[in-house]
């Protein structure tokens, strides 16, 4: 795997983490 390919994977992981954090935030303050 090249450095750039590892970067793509990192972007996807951070993306999923960001959306998950937002979902937990919404759940915490609206449930």
């Amino acid at each position, binding site marked *: 795997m090249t450095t750039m390919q590892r970067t793509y994977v990192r*972007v996807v992981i*951070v*993306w999923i983490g960001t*959306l998950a954090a937002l979902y937990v935030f919404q759940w915490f303050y609206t449930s």
Partner: protein
Amino acid sequence: MSAIDWGIIGVYLVWIVWDGIRLSRDTGKLEGYFLASKSLPWWAVGLSVMATQLSAITMVSSTGQGYADGVGLLQQYYALPIAMIIIAVTFVPFFRNANVYTAYEYLERRFDAKTRFATALLFLFSRGMATGVVISAPAVVLSVMLGADVTIVCLLLAVPTAVYTMYGGVQAVAWTDVKQMYLIVFGLGAACVTLIAGLPGEVSVNDALNIAGNAGRLQAFNFSTDPSVRFTFWTGTLGALFLFLSYFGTDQSQVQRFLTAKSVDEARTSLFMSAYWKIPLQALVMIIGVLMFVFYLFTPPPMLFNTVHDERVRQSARAGEYASLEQTFSGVVGERGAAARGLADAERVGDAAAIAATKAAFLDAEQRVKDVRAQAVALVKDVTGDNSYNDVNYVFPTYIVTQMPVGLIGLLMAAIFAAAMSTIAGELSALSTSTVMDFYRRWVRPEADDAHLLVVSRAAMLFWALFASVVAIWAVELGSLIEVVNRFGSFFYGSILGVFLLAIGWSRCNATGAFVGLIAGMFVVALVTINTSIAFLWHNLIGAVVVFVVGMIVSEVTGARKANG
């Protein structure tokens, strides 16, 4: 506003022009002027991309939407990181290796001159109009806040930007964008801190967010499948994916940025700055709106935030009706504040029955506040004739001017100016590049030398600055600011993206297929816009798919060929 705040705005305007001129290099050569001699580091390109994308509309209108409706708009940005990966894998190496000045230049090599001509023309038309909206949005609001004529504010935004962009080209744009981005982020952070500090002593940040959550202001995910709902998880991940692919991958204002990077990998890395930071930054913008909502639960807000309209109605024949509404408003705002305090207390104790009771009282009072405000807005529209009036665009500037300390007011106003100017500069530079490279050099003077083309480039930039300023005045009549910009884009974005997808992803596509596909895509999007209530973010997907499918079919029917570009 105090003299200190005016001074800060003045210093900012002088400094940014001086800084843009100071940092420009090699502007005597075409490649230096339009592509910064492909010498910019990834972080400068990345910040420049973010600054161009974060316009004053984001600061003024998105915070207002956060105040009125909550964080739902945030969903529009969910697909951005994935779009950036797709662009990094596909568009970036294609454009970089093709050694082009504009994205549309590549289409002539791949298809023919008329496809380049059509897409470049669509870009000039839609981006020229959008630049006008980018000027008018903050100008209208700032003119009310600063007590200045809207035309003067338009000129305050357009003239300094045009000066440093004309002088330094894309380098001036990129380096000023970097400074402007720092100022914007600092300003947003300062607003957030001031809002938290302005909450009553007994209301913590946690209480504030609990209240906002109970008021439905923290719905960051809406999984509705109704295609007429504007912002849902699906419009944000599917519809907006195509918008971002088109905007960041094929729009000259963005493509020009990654063409200025030192290498393909630096260009890719610059895009990932947006992939990492755009959603958190937009979340900060929306949270500022939500915090303003909570702040104004405990600090009585004005019934209407536009003081000019407010004064006009007070002076009109319907002043009595307005005063009566104001009296009602004052009463329900008091009830809402008391209910909010009760809800915060109940949440702190954790008493489920008390939470349910206080929440019901709070939501009831909130609805009555909304109803009175809606009546007041309707009254303003009747009296002033301003049918596109949207009061939420004035909430954040009003908060800045009336609640923030001296010094920070000037800084925040300068940040709004910076947000507008960074976007305007990027657009002017791209408009000029496309005008000169796709039209003047291609059709009028192919043999012209760099010196001649640079003179024409600066003249083109001046023309587009004037054009955008005229559109800015006209755009005031068109309604909700953020939607206007996106609607302009959505009409063409998906179709232009479809042509690039054919160019890169369908090697058998020929020039006739691409051109007919483009026309078909725009036609279908126009039909969908006129005849259905499908949310505008879906138009991008529809346009791209129609162009791709029609392009494939027409290519096969008319004699598909292998790509030569």
